[in-house]
């Protein structure tokens, strides 16, 4: 009997095997339950292919953008313009737009929680509050006119994204045929996941490197003869600037001067500054990963380096990353990570997403860049266009292989009561000054109202 009893005890291994399997299952359950529950094949949630639930999506100003009830999901915004302007923040019914809260916060919107599952007879439903402002979004969308592009505005002190407009967009209540060429990449949120050639806005990063590493940068003069010859190759400039200082070179966006500055800074230093600016990094914006830019000089000679410092060569940047960089300059060198889902909408969830700061520049460099950018606006772009917001900015006209150049305008307001940073990219829009500044103008006018 002793022997048999001993063998019986060893059968505990069967229980151990069972428990191991159970732990695997429960582990997966704990990790993925939210993903499983929002799957479109889950008929506890989806009826006729549309998610049901009890949630609402609100904009910063309290406008209801989306409602879910037991019959399905409906876009509550009354005018089509608002629906189009907020589409990439709100999301579409088929989860094609990865940045939409309808996808990222679906578990919450359908009224799911771990304890009750999808059963919620009495709860009033959860609301997801966006930091996106309805009027600013509309203004930005309208200002883009017939162009495609991206407009992002955020509060560099708190991290709230006030405007995140991506075009092309469409009215989700009345979806057109999206296969056409004009809707190419319509599901991509260009602010977060677009990647563009930066053009002259990139000179801000080159300038930051120059301020820190070239001691007499303010005393040097550069010679522009409508361009400059480097290693036997001509680097063309937009104009013939003649003898020009560093400050003027940035304001007039002189390629000849920056070709020389890039080479003075050198490959490695420039690479470091680009790295600090986060061009090659991914950022997490309310749980969404931004797309990485691209900056590499491994094969670049002096000409390549010159073009790279001007923002051409193989340079690619992500608008959100540039927006964060603007926030860092405005904020004395450290950037507040932006977010567009207001996590404080629910009292229980007090953890603020936007509090994580990262230093991109030294305080001193940031202040000097700020001065230079302020000078850009005052001397070149026209301060009066911005209604006393004391804007610091930089335009860009990025040459691309197909069609007209992309027009850029990036910057921020130095007015502490309107702590806004912005990025505007107009695809094939032509010159930054001509096309991008008016978009920024209209957007900032609305945004300033929203912040007040």
């Amino acid at each position: 009997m002793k022997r048999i009893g001993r063998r019986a005890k060893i059968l505990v291994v069967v229980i151990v095997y069972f428990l191991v399997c159970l732990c695997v299952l429960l582990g997966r359950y704990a990790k993925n339950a939210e993903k499983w529950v929002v799957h479109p094949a889950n008929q506890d949630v989806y009826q006729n292919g549309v998610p049901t639930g009890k949630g609402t999506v609100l904009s910063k100003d309290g406008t209801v953008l989306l409602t879910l009830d037991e019959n399905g999901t409906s876009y509550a915004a009354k005018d089509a313009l608002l629906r189009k302007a907020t589409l990439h923040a709100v999301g579409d019914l088929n989860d094609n737009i990865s940045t939409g809260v309808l996808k990222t916060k679906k578990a919450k919107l359908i009224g799911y929680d771990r304890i009750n599952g999808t059963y919620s007879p009495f709860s009033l439903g959860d609301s997801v509050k966006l930091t996106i402002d309805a009027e600013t979004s509309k203004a930005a969308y309208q200002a883009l006119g017939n162009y495609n592009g991206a407009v992002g505005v955020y509060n560099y002190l708190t991290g709230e994204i006030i405007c995140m407009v991506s075009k092309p967009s469409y009215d989700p209540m009345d979806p057109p045929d999206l296969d056409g060429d004009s809707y190419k990449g319509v599901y991509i949120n260009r602010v977060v996941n677009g990647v563009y050639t930066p053009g002259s806005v990139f000179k801000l990063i080159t300038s930051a490197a120059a301020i820190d590493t070239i001691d007499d940068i303010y005393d040097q003069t550069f010679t522009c003869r409508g361009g400059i010859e480097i290693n036997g190759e001509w680097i063309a400039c937009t104009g013939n600037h003649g003898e020009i200082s560093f400050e003027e070179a940035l304001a007039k966006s002189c390629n000849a001067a920056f070709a020389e500055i890039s080479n003075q800074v050198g490959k490695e230093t420039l690479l470091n500054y680009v790295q600090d600016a986060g061009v090659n990094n991914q950022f997490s914006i309310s749980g969404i990963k931004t797309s990485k830019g691209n900056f590499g000089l491994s094969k670049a000679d002096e000409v390549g380096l010159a073009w790279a410092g001007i923002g051409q060569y193989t340079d690619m940047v992500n608008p959100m990353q540039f927006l964060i960089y603007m926030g860092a300059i405005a904020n004395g060198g450290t950037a507040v990570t932006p977010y567009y889902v207001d996590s404080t909408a629910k009292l229980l969830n007090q953890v603020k997403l936007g509090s994580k700061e990262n230093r991109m520049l030294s305080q001193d460099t940031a202040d000097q860049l700020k001065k230079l950018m302020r000078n850009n606006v005052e001397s070149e772009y026209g301060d009066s266009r911005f209604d006393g917001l004391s804007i610091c900015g930089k335009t860009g006209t990025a040459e691309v292989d197909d069609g007209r150049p992309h027009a850029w305008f990036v910057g921020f307001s130095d007015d502490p009561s309107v702590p806004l940073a912005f990025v505007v990219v107009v695809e094939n829009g032509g010159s930054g000054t001509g096309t991008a500044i008016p978009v920024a103008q209209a957007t900032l006018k609305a945004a300033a109202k929203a912040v007040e």
Partner: protein
Amino acid sequence: MEQVIAFLNTYYLVIARFLFVIYAVIILIQLKRCMFHRSETTKVLAVLNVEDGAIRLPITHYETTIGRSKACDVVVPLPVMSRQHAVLSMEENGMWKISDTNSNGGISVNGEDLEQDSLISVGDEISMAGVKMRLSPPSRYTDEDSEEKGWLESRWERFRRKFRRRAQKLGSVNVALGALSLFQVLAFLQLYITLPEKYMPSLVTCFVVLLILPWVYKFSAYLLGIRNITAEAIAFFLTTIGFCTTASAAPYSLIKELLAFLLGIVIFCVMCGILRNLNLVMKLRRYAGIISILVLAVNLLLGVTKNGQKNWIDLGFVSVQPSEFVKILFVFAGAATLEWLLTTKNLTRLIVYATGCIGLLFLMGDFGTALIFFFTFLVLIFMTSGDVRAIILTCVSAGMGGLLILFFKPYIMNRFAAWGHVWEHVNDSAGFQQTRTLMASASGGLLGIGGGNGFLKQVFAADTDLVFGVICEEWGLLIALLVVACYILFLLGAIRSRKTTYSSYHIIAACTAASIFLFQASLNIFGATDVLPITGVTLPFVSNGGSSIAASWGLLSFITAALNYTRPKMKRNAASEWEPSPRTARKRVVRR
């Protein structure tokens, strides 16, 4: 009336979903206590006097091994003895029987050499390899002897007793059954609200029977010599959950399931009656083996193919799955008493028999059941021989055989094609069921969305293969985990029965049966949730399916027997000279 139902529809579940969990927890806690916390007595049944009382060894089991090895129950540390010399067991007529287990020195009783075994009376002189012994009644074995030599209590146990004074509460089967009844009433109301009108008669019938039967059983179990009904109470709970899921997923088959359940109870009672009489069992074993092979062979010849498996027999009025019942016969034929094991010492027959069964199942295409039989076979080999090498050898050869089959029939691999990445097969048959199960389980949360409210019930095989998903979705993860705990409890109880039951047959059979439950549950639960490849076996007691339910109750009888049959069934007034006298029986309480 409609208003009442509408009102209930909204508000009933709000409270009831908490009560379901509370009652289920009460049931499980009480039954766990019953299973683990019994007062046990270790009795001195006889005393073995070696060399005229130079050494006095107490016999405390009805089946006892004697030998030089420390693994023996009674150790006679003399070099002339074989390591495993003899088995002493009590016969049905109350007489002790000594059997030679192929010892070197042999055994003689009163000077006559023993061929195989012999009955012993008081005063008979037994000689093992020349060592003289006498078996005497326990009345002459005093407490001082035991205190002095510490036979009955090891140092460790004494130590533990010292520090665990705090008596744990004793579980009450009555409380558990009471909670079960309340659970059933609440579950019935929930299903009453959600089920279509036309199924009401069958729903009411099922739940009335479910409500009454445990109590009827409780008060009549003693007729079978059963006092500890913990295992049955667990099975009643599982069956209740089974009826809840069937009512939701396949309400048209409720009555069929009820009949199968009743049939299962009948099989259970008959089996308990047979298991009470081990002599009969040992005689019937071989027939059980032959019958099971025949049944499977007939099944293979006359079987009906359903879902690619030829494991059904159509009897005209009803179709059954004979392989489910063969499980009972397999355990019945595979387990053995200590005496048989040590005198026969032959695994060949078991191996041939098991290979036959598994081979036939393979030919039927019932890989799930074949796997269960293979596992059962491993447990049986281990329990009967303790030979780990044999098990490794079996596994290796089975693995090679498996590879060979895959080599010749590679399409079998397709069954496992989606394993581990079912989410890439959401809309094809390879991953359809598993992904729906996972979605539904997540939808249920901890407390469930209410019986009859889920969507998984519409998916094919929701009431059988995916039943775990239905439990999670409609009754919540907590109840599902309690269901899982039931199967673990069965095996723990079976392992625990080594301390109560009198014959190794019962321990082996109970452990094997409980292992089958747990293993089958693992294939079902983890197959449906993609932790293991999906094999399409049923969840014992829960899955809808007549044969499965009836057979589960049949297997349960082995566990019940081990928990209850603590001494051989003796004829009245049989050999009272060996009765342990109450004065000297040392009683102690084992806490665990």
